[in-house]
């Protein structure tokens, strides 16, 4: 919150101030007292908040449908809950008692840990689980047998990242865990029954914020899969989530994806057919899974129609498909995308209506003439020959930086989806395709940077910018260079917006005097980094 006395408050700071969430608010309030402009803006913001609250009170609350039945008295249900809690296993009750009795824990922690450890040892021999894992698993298997079969959409992650299908499949196979339907009580029970020695644990309602569930955890030293947990719904016995710890590997987490939001879904004819009603879900197998090469070809097809630049289109490869999602895409554009990738293997398209859009229109970055001026505005106006010329310059720079960010974003996505390890595993023709894609992005970036350089450098120099010839760092591969390029480009874009009066300086921005120099330095650095993005012949 430095320099609050001299600079205006940003909209975000005003909102935080109104909400009591701004650190150093006394300083901001002092500024409000001194500055008419900020005070007027602040009062306008308060008026908008007041308007919203009046809307809620007068327009929304009176017309919301009333509860369909009288509110129930919850006391009988509280008493039922008390009876349930009294039957909790000893260990759980002890843990709850310790956690509520001794706060803060630092003083009591060693004694508490020792006592809990002792309780755990006693508990293991004395209080066997009230509900055995095998009993619950068998109930879940029986329930699954009579449930109509349906294909599950699974999200499989390793170490928090989307897992590599082939590698994960190999791990499950090595541990004799049925890979055809890994998130099922049947697969878990089959593995569980094979283990000659194991420790089992059953926890009821592990997360108070979720629906009633059983958590089954099995630990063993007699399998490559050393610990596996399965979360089963107590409502319908469905497996909700599983975690799998293989020896020496990062944790694998599998969960069923929620039903998809209402969206227009177009499955391609070339994709594997969905399971017939009543038939078991098609098991994911190596032959039915899209490869990185499949994803690359889909990316290239979208790139050919520039759908990877600016359109809110996302590509996600899972075990079963390559899902292309788009939000607020006009009908004509949808048709083009459908034509470009519709016939490709594994592709599924989902388009959502604009109302579900999560982003503001790109025009939000447009700098209106009513925005407050940056300290450089007057100088820029004089230098460029008046307000219309400055507006034209502003539009040129913003258009070019917008395009550059779209290209940089597309290239960064390519680098993230095809890191070095994946790139080297691609067959030669796919590697050549990746090089080609990367080369096209790099060439477009080079051209855009040259345009920005030509337009902005003379202006920046006239604002006394001093270029600092700091060389760009040498990075290990193009993927790392892309990441650095993106960060630098984003910073440059932000600095341009501040310079042209579209945003106020934040804590990470240089002081006003240093801004033109930093911009010039960013431009130089981007030019150098851009060279590392181009494939070597």
């Amino acid at each position, binding site marked *: 919150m430095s320099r609050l006395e001299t600079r205006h408050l940003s909209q975000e700071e005003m909102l935080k101030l109104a909400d009591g969430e701004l650190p150093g608010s006394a300083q901001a309030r002092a500024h409000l007292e001194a500055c008419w402009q900020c005070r007027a803006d602040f009062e306008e913001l308060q008026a*908008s908040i007041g308007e*919203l609250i009046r809307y809620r009170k007068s327009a929304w609350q009176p017309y919301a449908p009333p509860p369909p039945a009288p509110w129930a008295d919850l006391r009988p249900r509280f008493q039922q809950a008390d009876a349930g809690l009294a039957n909790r296993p000893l260990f759980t009750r002890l843990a709850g008692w310790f956690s509520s009795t001794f706060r803060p824990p630092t003083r009591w922690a060693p004694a508490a840990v020792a006592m809990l450890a002792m309780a755990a040892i006693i508990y293991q021999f004395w209080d066997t689980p009230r509900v055995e894992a095998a009993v619950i698993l068998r109930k879940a298997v029986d329930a699954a047998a009579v449930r109509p079969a349906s294909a599950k959409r699974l999200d499989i992650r390793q170490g928090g990242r989307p897992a590599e299908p082939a590698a994960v499949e190999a791990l499950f196979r090595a541990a004799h865990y049925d890979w055809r339907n890994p998130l099922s009580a049947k697969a878990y029970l089959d593995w569980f029954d094979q283990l000659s020695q194991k420790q089992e644990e059953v926890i009821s309602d592990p997360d108070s914020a979720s629906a009633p569930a059983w958590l089954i955890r099995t630990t063993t030293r007699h399998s490559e899969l050393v610990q596996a947990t399965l979360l089963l719904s107590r409502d319908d016995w469905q497996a909700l989530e599983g975690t799998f710890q293989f020896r020496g590997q990062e944790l694998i987490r599998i969960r069923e994806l929620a039903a998809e939001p209402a969206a227009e879904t177009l499955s391609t004819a070339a994709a594997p057919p969905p399971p017939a009603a009543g038939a078991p879900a098609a098991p994911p197998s190596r032959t039915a899974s899209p490869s990185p090469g499949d994803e690359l070809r889909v990316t290239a097809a979208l790139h050919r129609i520039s759908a990877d630049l600016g359109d809110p289109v996302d590509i996600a490869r899972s075990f079963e498909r390559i899902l292309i999602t788009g939000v607020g895409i006009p009908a004509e554009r949808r048709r083009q995308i459908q034509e470009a990738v519709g016939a490709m293997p594994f592709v599924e398209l989902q388009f959502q209506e604009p109302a579900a859009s999560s982003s503001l229109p790109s025009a939000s970055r447009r700098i209106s003439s009513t925005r407050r001026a940056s300290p450089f505005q007057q100088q820029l106006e004089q230098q460029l020959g008046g307000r219309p010329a400055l507006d034209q310059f502003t539009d040129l720079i913003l258009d070019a930086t917008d395009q550059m960010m779209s290209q940089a974003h597309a290239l960064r996505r390519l680098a993230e989806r095809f890191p070095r390890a994946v790139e080297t595993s691609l067959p030669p023709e796919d590697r050549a395709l990746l090089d080609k894609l990367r080369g096209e992005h790099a060439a477009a970036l080079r051209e855009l940077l040259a345009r920005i350089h030509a337009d902005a450098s003379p202006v920046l120099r006239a604002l006394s910018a001093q270029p600092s010839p700091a060389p760009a760092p040498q990075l290990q591969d193009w993927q790392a260079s892309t990441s650095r390029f993106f960060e630098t480009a984003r910073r440059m874009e932000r600095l341009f917006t501040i310079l042209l009066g579209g945003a106020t300086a934040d804590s990470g921005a240089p002081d006003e005097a240093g801004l033109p120099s930093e911009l010039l330095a960013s431009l130089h650095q981007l030019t150098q980094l851009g060279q590392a993005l181009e494939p070597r012949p």
Partner: protein
Amino acid sequence: MYFHAPEEQWDEVLRLDRAKVTLQDKVTRLYEEARDDVYRYLLLLGLTPPQAQEAAQEVFLRLYVTLSKGEEIHSPRGWIFRVAHNLGLKLRAKNSAQLPFDPELEARLRDPDVSHEQSLLERERWILLHRGIESLSEQQRRCLFLRMEGLRYPEIGEALGISASSVAEFLRRAIARLRKVCHESP
């Protein structure tokens, strides 16, 4: 384990009973105060009225169970809305339908028989705001509604699984957009 002194045993039993009754009173009071707010929030998430009412009751039952287990809750209102939010999303996912934000409200506002107490100008204003809210992204709308329910930024962040600074940014964008919609419309 046996107590040698019967008085001591009875004291303990009575103390526990009293504690339970106090907790039941406390949660019941919270339930009476906040159930309508929770119910309306769940409607906004896209639940049907019966689902929203059942889920609102479930939230307070979970609050009671959590407190009975001895867990500390620093901000009950924040906790209640966090659990309501998660439960609401889970139920909505089961419905596999994403309902638009109260599509009938505009018709009700336009109907002079229904909203006769409001002036035409006021109704037009609410319709504009309603359209503005409809045009917000889901995350912006959620932040806005939770803020209107009195939750602080960290509490909203906890409910939605985002940082407090992201909450600030979503709110800023939401308000900027609403002001734009209201001021730009004829």
